[in-house]
């Protein structure tokens, strides 16, 4: 567990890199791979700038040594640990370490890749060219999942681990290593998806940024307009996903109140609301009250969207737990 917590923090770390530690890690990784240390280490402010730097340096960097520095030692350590623990033991090791970080870190690095490719599309750079540079990147902090699995048992991965603990993506080449700063902003929801309503969910020091609401990529302009939403603007939005974001941002409670919505049903579990939308399925929600009081003594009210076929508040609350209304009978709620 301690490795998972440590590497979860590494994957989510923001702020300036510890450049001296990261550079030591790079040199150690080259030495471990029995390569000469790079002649030069170039720092850039985002993975996007990293792609730019690798492209502009061209042949001056020498060939990519990602295979020797990262892929090969990782594969060999995986085989060694697998042989040592057996297939069951290895599966258990992965389940309690790397598997717990895999989905969220992979989703994040994939979003960064997509964002980089899109940003170059505006400059008319071939997508395949950008993707091939991205394939040569070592993901630093975003390699947290597999570094968590081998932490404490694979000294030969120490260089890679040290870079990851202190900074972000990097490109190992024969003569030159290009290495990126970490993000300055990273905002995610409880499920680990990029999520922010009033600015970029991920931003690097040079301004390269991704905007997202509950994981859904949205244009920066869309977010800046959220602060000036009106009932009419929400109703006029034709994209159902964007309209949902607008409703969530505006607040279902405020929308219900201002649009004069009437409760459809009320019982001991809460209140059922329904908003009809032109050309889309209605929004049906249960309003429920948190049973544990807040520090100020008030009880927080919240809304959960339920299927449009829901007819009673209890049916809605039961649905959120996958139950039929008859089966939902909590004796204690907090």
């Amino acid at each position: 567990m301690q490795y998972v917590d440590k590497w979860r923090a590494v994957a989510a770390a923001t702020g300036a890199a510890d450049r001296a530690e990261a550079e030591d890690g790079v040199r150690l990784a080259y030495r471990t791979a029995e390569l000469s240390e790079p002649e030069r280490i170039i720092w850039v402010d985002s993975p996007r700038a990293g792609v730019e730097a690798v492209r502009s340096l061209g042949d001056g960097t020498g060939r990519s040594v990602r295979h020797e520095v990262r892929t090969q030692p990782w594969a060999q350590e995986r085989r060694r640990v697998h042989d040592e623990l057996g297939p069951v033991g290895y599966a258990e090791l992965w389940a309690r370490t790397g598997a717990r970080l895999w989905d969220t870190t992979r989703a994040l690095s994939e979003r960064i890749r997509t964002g980089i490719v899109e940003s170059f599309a505006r400059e008319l750079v071939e997508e395949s060219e950008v993707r091939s540079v991205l394939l040569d990147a070592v993901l630093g902090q975003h390699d947290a999942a597999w570094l968590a699995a081998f932490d404490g048992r694979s000294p030969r991965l120490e260089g890679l681990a040290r870079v990851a603990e202190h900074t972000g993506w990097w490109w190992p080449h024969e003569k030159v290593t290009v290495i990126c700063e970490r993000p300055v902003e990273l905002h995610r929801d409880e499920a680990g998806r990029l999520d922010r309503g009033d600015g970029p969910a991920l931003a690097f020091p040079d301004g390269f940024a991704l905007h997202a609401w509950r994981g859904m990529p949205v244009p920066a302009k869309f977010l800046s307009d959220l602060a000036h939403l009106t009932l009419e603007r929400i109703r006029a939005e034709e994209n159902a996903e964007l309209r949902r974001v607008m409703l969530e941002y505006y607040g279902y409670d405020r929308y219900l109140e201002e649009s004069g919505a009437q409760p459809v049903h009320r019982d001991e579990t809460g209140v059922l609301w329904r908003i009809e939308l032109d050309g889309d399925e209605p929004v049906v929600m249960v309003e429920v009250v948190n049973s544990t009081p807040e520090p100020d003594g008030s009880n927080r009210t919240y809304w959960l969207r339920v299927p449009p076929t829901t007819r009673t508040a209890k049916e809605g609350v039961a649905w959120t737990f996958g139950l039929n209304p008859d089966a939902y009978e909590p004796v204690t709620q907090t």
Partner: protein
Amino acid sequence: MYRQGDVLIMPVAEEAVPSHAADARSEPRDARGRMVLALGEVTGHAHAVTGRGRLVREAGPFGPMLLHLPEGGRVVHEEHAAIPLPKGWFRVVRQREYTPGAVRIVAD
């Protein structure tokens, strides 16, 4: 049946416990020795059970899970009042929310 925030804990009769549950691998406890029913990825707040027993994951990253408490226990959370649980088997279900075309997990 007990509800703590977005987690529902339902008693399961002994004879209704799936036969494979007895041999299934237990979920590891956290650094404080607790069985974690649900963990907030960002806040680190957890619905967790103290006491003797085991937690078995049935399917998927968000459960359902089976909880066995041979002597009873207590489910705790940073923002909710603790709930004492009697001894026995339980099914643990995480609350979900409807979104058109998909269903997502609620997190509190």
